[in-house]
């Protein structure tokens, strides 16, 4: 059975089991966490850093920090949430280092889901993925991160606030702008692509 097919309850019990193993000196057992969470961490880090190489470094550092601090993990939250927080901190730290966070509020034209061309729906999965990635690259790091946490990882607004350290109202504002920005970038990219094709 694949790890991804395990139910959330069982997954969290498995997490506990492997934490105990690692804490008892079985370092090889840490591979379980790497296999389980590397893709989730990578998706999060890419959304913040917009570069696969930087994201790889951030994820690697996050795994090392998690290993170092595993003893201090008290189990008050799920391991995935705790680890997610480390990944976000590490990614945001790298953004700060580059001093290139473009999360300045700009005017966004009003675009609704209906404005997304039907061509996106008609596209093949790989093409859809390409355009969605392109749009995500163009929106600010914080907005991409908020979208990722809220829609992909399915955290609530309160949980996003807890994970990122932003206030609940700030999360709501960022999410609102992120949605608008995402639709706007998506329709812009698709329109420009259409012009190139015809």
């Amino acid at each position, binding site marked *: 059975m694949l790890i991804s097919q395990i139910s959330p309850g069982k997954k969290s019990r498995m997490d506990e089991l492997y934490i105990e193993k690692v804490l008892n000196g079985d370092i090889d057992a840490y591979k379980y966490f790497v*296999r389980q969470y*590397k893709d989730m961490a990578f*998706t999060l880090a890419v959304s913040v850093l917009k570069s696969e190489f930087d994201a*790889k470094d951030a994820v690697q550092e996050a795994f*090392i920090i998690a290993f170092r601090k595993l003893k201090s993990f008290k189990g008050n939250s799920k391991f995935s949430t705790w680890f997610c927080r480390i990944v976000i901190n590490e990614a945001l730290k790298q953004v700060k280092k580059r001093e290139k966070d473009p999360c300045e509020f700009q005017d966004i034209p009003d675009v609704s889901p209906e404005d*997304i061309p039907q061509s996106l729906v008609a596209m093949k999965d790989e093409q859809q993925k390409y355009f969605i990635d392109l749009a995500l690259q163009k929106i600010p790091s914080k907005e991409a991160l908020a979208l*990722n946490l809220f829609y992909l990882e399915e955290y609530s607004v309160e949980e996003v606030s807890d994970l990122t350290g932003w206030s609940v109202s700030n999360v709501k504002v960022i999410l609102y702008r992120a*949605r608008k920005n995402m639709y706007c970038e998506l329709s812009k990219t698709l329109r420009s692509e259409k012009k190139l094709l015809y």
Partner: protein
Amino acid sequence: MEPVYEDIKLQNILSKSRKEMPFRDFEDELMIEIFKEGDRKRSVLKNIKLSWLFFIIGLISGIALISVPSLLNETAADFTSYAAILSILMIALCLIILLFAEKLIRFSFFRDR
């Protein structure tokens, strides 16, 4: 309701942005670093144990250095100059204990913070 429709639509769109780690050697590279980290942790623990051992040896030697000669020289004529040296030694010993004990306790019990 529009917001729900919008949320579902966006969720469907974003589900396609889920990524897989494209670097094949990521897991191996990371595990090498983790094993190094494990070795480092073990060597830190070993060093802390050794530090405690030498601290206790130093403590016992210091107390012996101060107390044994003072017992032998209690009746000596130049007792006053000897007492001055002894008090300097005592102050030095106390300072060393304070400085190193604090560091040792911090590294032994609070190093994760």
